[in-house]
C-alpha cells in the first residue's frame, strides 16, 4: 500500500480539491483506491509527516532538501493544465 501526502497552504481547501482530482485521475488509469492511501496536511506539516509517506504532492511552492521522498507539484490537479504528466509522475514514482 503506497502512501501519498497531499499538501496545500492551510491544508484544507485546495488539498481537498487536489486529492479528489487525484483519486479520479488514478481511477481513470485503472488504479483502484486499495492500492494507495491519501493523507492531507498544510505545507508547514510536510517536513514532520513526509517520513510516513512514499510521495508528497503540494499545490503551493515547496522546496525543502530535508524531504527524502519525491515531491511533486500538484497545481495541475487544480487547473487541469498538464495533469497527465503529473499522473504519469505519480504512477512512475510509486510504481503503481
Amino acid at each position, binding site marked *: 500500500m503506497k502512501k501519498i501526502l497531499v499538501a*496545500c*497552504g*492551510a491544508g*484544507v*481547501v*485546495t488539498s*481537498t*480539491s487536489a486529492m*479528489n*482530482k487525484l483519486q479520479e485521475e488514478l481511477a481513470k488509469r485503472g488504479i483502484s483506491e486499495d492500492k494507495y492511501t491519501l493523507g492531507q496536511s498544510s*505545507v508547514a506539516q510536510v517536513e514532520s509527516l513526509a517520513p510516513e509517506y512514499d510521495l508528497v504532492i503540494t*499545490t*503551493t*511552492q515547496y522546496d525543502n532538501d530535508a524531504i527524502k521522498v519525491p515531491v511533486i*507539484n500538484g*497545481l495541475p490537479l*487544480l*487547473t*487541469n*493544465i498538464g495533469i497527465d504528466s503529473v499522473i504519469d509522475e505519480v504512477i512512475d514514482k510509486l510504481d503503481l
Partner: protein
Amino acid sequence: MNLLSPQLVFAQVDFNSADEIIHFLAEQLKKENKVKDTFEQAVKSREAVHPTGLPSGEIAVAIPHTDVQYVNAPAITFATLSHPIIFHNMAVTEQTLNVQIVVMLALKNPHSQVEMLQKLMALFQDQELLSKLMQISSDEDLYKAVSKHIQ
C-alpha cells in the same frame, strides 16, 4: 446547501489591488455574518505566505481563503473585475498573474463541500465560459449564470 447567494456575487467591480478586493469581499461576508471579524486579516496574511492565484489560462482566477476557524457559516463570494489585479501564483510564489476573477471561499468543512469545489475548479478551466461571465454587467445576471454551474 446554497453556498452562493445573490448578495455575494459582484459583476465588473473596480479595485486596484489584491488587498482591496479581499477587503471588499470580506466585508460582504461579514455583513452576511458568514465570517468572524478576524477573517479578513487571516486571508491577507495567508495570501502573503501562500498566494492563491491560479494560472487557469488566459483568464486567471484567485481563490483567497483561510483556515476554517475564521468562518461562521460556509459561503463563497464571486467577483469579476473591471480590470485585472495582480495576485501571486499559488505554485510559483514569485510569479505574478493578472487575475480577472476572484472567488473568495469561506468554508467550514471542505470535505463535505468537495463536489462544489470540483465544480468551481471545472468552471475555472472553462475559459470560454469565463470570458462570457466577464461580459455580464449586472450582479443578478452574474449570480444566475454562475449558480447554474456550481450548485
